């Protein structure tokens, strides 16, 4: 085996090596956190639709995502009910209310789903339980999401609080998660929804849910709906509405931009740190590298030595960076009560490793110039 010069040079300066590893690990963690948030955004966007009991969705073309819907006439839903393959249509009303924490008496926005209690809008069997069904039918009563942030206060059944200056009683609990748009969610009947959002005409709905008969072809029914319904509603299959929502969060809002920017800035930090380390290392070994050139080594050899150092730093920094990121993901998941579905994905792990190697190689390319132009005649 040839003398592993790159490796030996790196491990010779223990302190410098540790600083370099810490620097790379730091950049890796920043990248993982940014990508983690970005990923959880996409996941959170899809989460609610996997909880809804419908294959096809009707929305207003002006609707951006589920928490900022533009209402459209319920007639569209009735029209959809007549199409072959449709088993059932269900309206969904959505909006924000000011929830007062009964203990601290502070107000906080809570996201509200209004449903017809007779409709199986949600997949979760918990919401269909006799107690919850009964609670939904009581006036001024709502079910509360267990994943709502603790700032909303106690969630026990029977708790009475004030919501938009109206008394509301907690009638039961369910588990859903509010994603990025909401810290907490409520489910109430359409009748209660109309009271709390007064004036609110129930003939305008936020989202139309179309449940298909078993065995019906989703694409075919969706195409038929598009053909039949006027232009004032969009007909979207579940994958389509999820994609639309992701595009909104990642593309249209600045959220995606901010996290994307975070990744870029983290990479720049990494590049600068590795550049510093490599540059110092090269400066310290200038005489030795020039001697190698005098002995008959080509610039190519020195170039690859520096690139090797960079790749070694990348891998050594990635390992702790990856491990710490796993811990931080877990911490974030707990801190948000699972509302932020952040987690490691194999694809992301591989991408960040390649990104780290690329980042360090870039630093190598910037710093290697010095050794390429080193003149062996000057060391004599």
């Amino acid at each position: 085996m040839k003398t592993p010069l790159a490796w030996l040079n790196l491990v010779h300066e223990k302190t410098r090596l540790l600083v370099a590893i810490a620097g790379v690990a730091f950049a890796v963690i920043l990248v993982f956190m940014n990508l983690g948030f970005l990923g959880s955004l996409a996941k959170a966007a899809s989460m609610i639709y996997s909880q809804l009991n419908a294959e096809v969705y009707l929305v207003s073309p002006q609707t951006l995502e589920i928490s900022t819907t533009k209402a459209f006439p319920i007639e569209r839903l009735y029209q959809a009910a007549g199409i072959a393959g449709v088993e059932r249509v269900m309206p969904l009303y959505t909006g924000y209310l000011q929830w007062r924490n009964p203990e601290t008496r502070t107000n906080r926005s809570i996201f509200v789903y209004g449903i017809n209690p007779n409709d199986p809008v949600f997949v979760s069997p918990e919401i269909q339980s006799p107690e919850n069904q009964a609670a939904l039918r009581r006036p001024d009563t709502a079910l509360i999401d267990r994943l709502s942030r603790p700032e909303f206060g106690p969630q026990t059944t029977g708790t009475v609080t004030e919501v938009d200056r109206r008394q509301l009683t907690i009638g039961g609990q369910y588990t859903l998660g509010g994603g990025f748009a909401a810290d907490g969610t409520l489910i109430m009947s359409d009748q209660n929804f109309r009271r709390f959002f007064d004036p609110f005409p129930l003939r305008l709905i936020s989202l139309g849910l179309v449940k298909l008969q078993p065995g019906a072809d989703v694409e075919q029914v969706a195409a038929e709906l598009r053909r039949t319904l006027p232009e004032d509603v969009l007909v979207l299959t579940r994958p389509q509405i999820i994609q639309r929502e992701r595009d909104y969060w990642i593309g249209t809002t600045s959220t995606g931009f901010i996290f994307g920017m975070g990744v870029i800035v983290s990479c720049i930090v990494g590049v600068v740190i590795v550049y510093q380390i490599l540059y110092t290392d090269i400066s310290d070994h200038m005489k030795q590298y020039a001697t190698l050139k005098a002995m008959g080594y080509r610039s190519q050899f020195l170039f690859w030595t520096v690139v090797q150092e960079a790749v070694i730093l990348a891998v050594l920094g990635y390992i702790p960076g990856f491990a710490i990121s796993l811990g931080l993901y877990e911490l974030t998941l707990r801190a948000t009560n699972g509302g932020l579905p952040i987690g490691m994905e194999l694809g992301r792990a591989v991408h960040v490793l390649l990104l780290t190697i690329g980042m360090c190689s870039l630093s190598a390319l910037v710093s290697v110039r010095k050794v390429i132009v080193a003149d062996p005649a000057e060391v004599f």
Partner: protein
Amino acid sequence: MSQSMSQSMSQSMSQSMSQLVGSTTLETNSDPNAYAVQIRGLNYYFGQGDLRKQVLFDIDLDLLKGQIVIMTGPSGSGKTTLLTLIGALRTVREGSLKVLGQEIVGLSRAELVNVRRNIGFIFQAHNLFDSLTAAQNVEMAVELLDEWGDKRQKAIEMLSQLGLADRVDYKPSALSGGQKQRVAIARALVNQPALILADEPTAALDKKSGREVVTLMQQLAKQEGRTILMVTHDNRILDVADRIITLVDGRLETDDNLENFVNTHDPKSLDRRMFMM
């Protein structure tokens, strides 16, 4: 330096001189293969345009194979520059310079690198990698060869010849100055280069280790018939030379065997000159 010291020095020189009687230093030889280095009409300039400054003037010099040649001269006279030109570390533009039978004027950078692989360089500073052991530093030279599978044996053998058998796995930080310079010499000699260029190899060493290092170089060169061109200011080691050349202001001033050199250079003035440098 005291009078008595320089006297004793010239005595020791004269003694070693007697061993050199009959040396062939100044004989001419018509066979071009007999020369390690042949220089004709070499001029060299530093800088461009108005700042252009000539440092070497019309140098003619032949180094016979197997000779140990010492080059002296005042500081700034162009000794290092001449050495780097012969070592293919700089590009020559004027004149002719043949190294080991090959004309190197007009060669590309890549071709110059190949020429360098046949030359052993020894610098004033040892320039060893602190991160590598003595053996690994020497192995770096062996790895330049196509066949380097036995690099460790070769390195150990070379280091042993230089008296470092028990130091092969030491890092430079654990070696003395003289030992480090001997590792550097081992690195320069391990590939058995036909030509060895040394620029003040003893300058950073004390008297005793300087002497040791030069004697070792001399022994190895004589055993293997290598050519050595060594720049030195150290008149204590002149006795290893078959021939001494002096460079003054970029011109070859004297070219003598040791006997003539000492005879024509009064010890006192010689001493003074060395001191000036």
